[in-house]
């Protein structure tokens, strides 16, 4: 029994964390709200952070080595997704790395470097218009060429996540049941990990702010009304993270309960991310409510991902079916 990550897994995480600190500071997240494609590289599709991740091999991490990828497992990449959540990376990271790249690599070997971007949605597809390949899980699960597809764009609360429905594509093939199921649970694991990273970052931002901010002649972080809200968030994170890591292990090991374990992780992280967002805003006060301040970029990503691919209630019901209904 050993519940932890290897030195290699932690080193990979640290490398991605360092890369994102350089390539995806908050200014990049903010710029993605107003640029052409909502991504980290400005007007050109597939920008700085994306290509840097591609150069590191991260974008093909789950692609088999025989197809040019790193041939890693969900357990090796779960911490990377957590880091992209912490950075609020405005890229289809989960959709590409966890879902799309392994499905598309045979026809599009460029997914390994990120020269070809895959995205995925259920049914709302983020960053669809700028993607080269699109995976739609619902309705009618298909994998389609994005470049010749028709989309109906819709607006997300998260201005970077450019959403669209896939209307029509000339080149497409249906997903098999197996592909669909694997894609769905891997994607949910990725979102759960991102929600965890978002929660950690919102907590860190708020701790930093409440240490600096003075009212009544004292740092507001010294007041119990602030302390207890943030302590609750810290407790929530402490008891969400192990569910995420266990779900990654179960998927990697192809465990029979893997889907239920992912649902546990997604339900817990969706709830804790919403708690973190709420506490972060309240403890910041009016500055947090200001559009020019960065907090809302993280909050809105959290709100978007909390509901994507099944909200907490939906995933809890999956757990309920597994444990409560007599088989």
């Amino acid at each position, binding site marked *: 029994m050993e519940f*932890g990550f290897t030195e290699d897994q932690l080193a990979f995480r640290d490398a991605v964390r360092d890369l994102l600190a350089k390539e995806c500071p908050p200014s990049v997240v903010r710029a993605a709200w107003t640029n052409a494609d909502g991504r980290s590289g400005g007007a050109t599709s597939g920008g700085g952070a994306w290509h840097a991740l591609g150069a590191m091999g991260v974008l093909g991490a789950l692609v088999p080595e025989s197809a040019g990828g790193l041939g890693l497992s969900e*357990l090796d990449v779960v911490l990377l997704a957590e880091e992209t959540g912490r950075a609020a990376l405005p890229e289809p990271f989960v959709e590409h790395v966890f879902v799309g790249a392994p499905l598309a690599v045979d026809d599009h070997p460029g997914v390994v470097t990120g020269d070809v971007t895959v995205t995925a949605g259920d049914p709302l597809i983020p960053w669809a218009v700028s993607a080269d390949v699109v995976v739609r899980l619902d309705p009618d699960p298909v994998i389609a060429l994005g470049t010749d597809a028709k989309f109906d764009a819709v607006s997300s609360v998260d201005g970077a996540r450019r959403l669209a429905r896939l209307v029509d594509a000339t080149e497409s093939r249906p997903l098999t049941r197996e592909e669909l199921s694997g894609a769905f649970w891997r994607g949910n694991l990725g979102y759960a990990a991102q929600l965890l990273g978002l929660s950690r970052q919102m*907590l860190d931002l708020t*701790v930093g702010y409440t240490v600096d901010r003075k009212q009544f002649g004292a*740092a507001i972080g010294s007041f119990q009304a602030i302390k207890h809200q943030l*302590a609750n968030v810290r407790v929530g994170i402490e008891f969400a993270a*192990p*569910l995420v890591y266990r779900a990654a292990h179960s998927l990697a090991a192809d465990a029979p309960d893997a889907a239920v374990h992912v649902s546990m992780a997604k339900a817990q992280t969706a709830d804790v991310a919403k708690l973190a967002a709420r506490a972060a805003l309240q403890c910041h006060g009016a500055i947090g409510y200001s559009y020019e301040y960065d907090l809302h970029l993280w909050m809105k990503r959290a709100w978007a991902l909390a509901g994507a691919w099944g909200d907490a209630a939906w995933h809890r019901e999956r757990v309920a079916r597994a444990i409560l209904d007599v088989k």
Partner: protein
Amino acid sequence: MDLTWSPAEQEFRADVAGWLQANVPSEPLPSGDTAAGFALHLEWERKLFDARWAVVSWPEEYGGRSASLWEWLIFEEEYYRAGAPQRVTQNGIFLLAPTIFEFGTPEQQDRYLPTMASGEESWCQGWSEPDAGSDLAGIRSTATRDDAAGGWRLNGQKTWTTRGAFCTHLFGLFRTDPSAERHRGLTYFLVPLDTVGVTVRGFGRLDGDEGFAEVFFEDALVTDDLVLGGIDQGWSVAMATTGSERGLTLRSPGRFMATAERLVALYRERGPDAVDGSLRGRVAQAYIDSEAYRLQTLQTVTRVTGGDPPGVESSLTKVFWSELDVSLHEIALDLLGFEAELESPWMKGFEFALSGPIYAGTNEIQRNVIAERVLGLPRK
């Protein structure tokens, strides 16, 4: 990451489960927080001790099996799964013993550990006082040097002492240096409750059991060999115990996993048609939380086994398990509907669960600790 048990661990589990199946009383014992029930629980403890299951993680010489932390977790899982009796010796074996192992003299270890493990002597915790609850450093009970008598004279009062009326011994903090600042000048004493000048008066808890006691000290003489860990060192010695109380040792995941399984069974027994639909999600959430607690413990034990001692994170754990325990019982009572008010293990368990967010440092104190020592927010 490896989430499987080794063959040796599986064998250990089978041994534990087999012994429990053959020996756990078929009818639950009466509450160990009553005089009669306490005596019956001590008989059970003796049985555990004779089979060397009372203190599995202790060395063989004191009645244990030198079990690893992993085996200890397995033992606890099986213990609660089997519905075995509550551990009335827990304040001794889980709270005092780690402190004696760390700070006790060899003589103290030999004198107290075996009798504690067998239940021959039973220990209560003498920390809280009428004016020192959450503010534990506000302790006023004193220990004054009496050279002529060759020891220390205890004066003052402890209260809310769990099972104090049934125990033979008390471990507690007393002020040895009245001029020192709050956390300094305290000393940790081991006190036989039959010492002249000690009076114990039991009183009822919320659930009606006489599980609390007040303990009065009037010039009670304790000898030097009853000091644990040095004069005026009581606070740091005691803090070694709070880590145990809040974290790993007192509330192993097995307990909540077993309660969650019983909650699931209760839901199935009532049937989805008989209960409000909103309760499904709450049952599932409580089950998820008990899983989260189990997995977080595996993570912690991995770290501790790797040489990283458990620290201030025990406050995170304490807030979580105590609220989880309340929640598990609240949901069960909601499933029971109008029958919730009837006397039942669920109502009894609910009343007990409500003490969790209060004892071992209230959850408000824990949240302060988390904010200041985990998150780094300023004390003032």
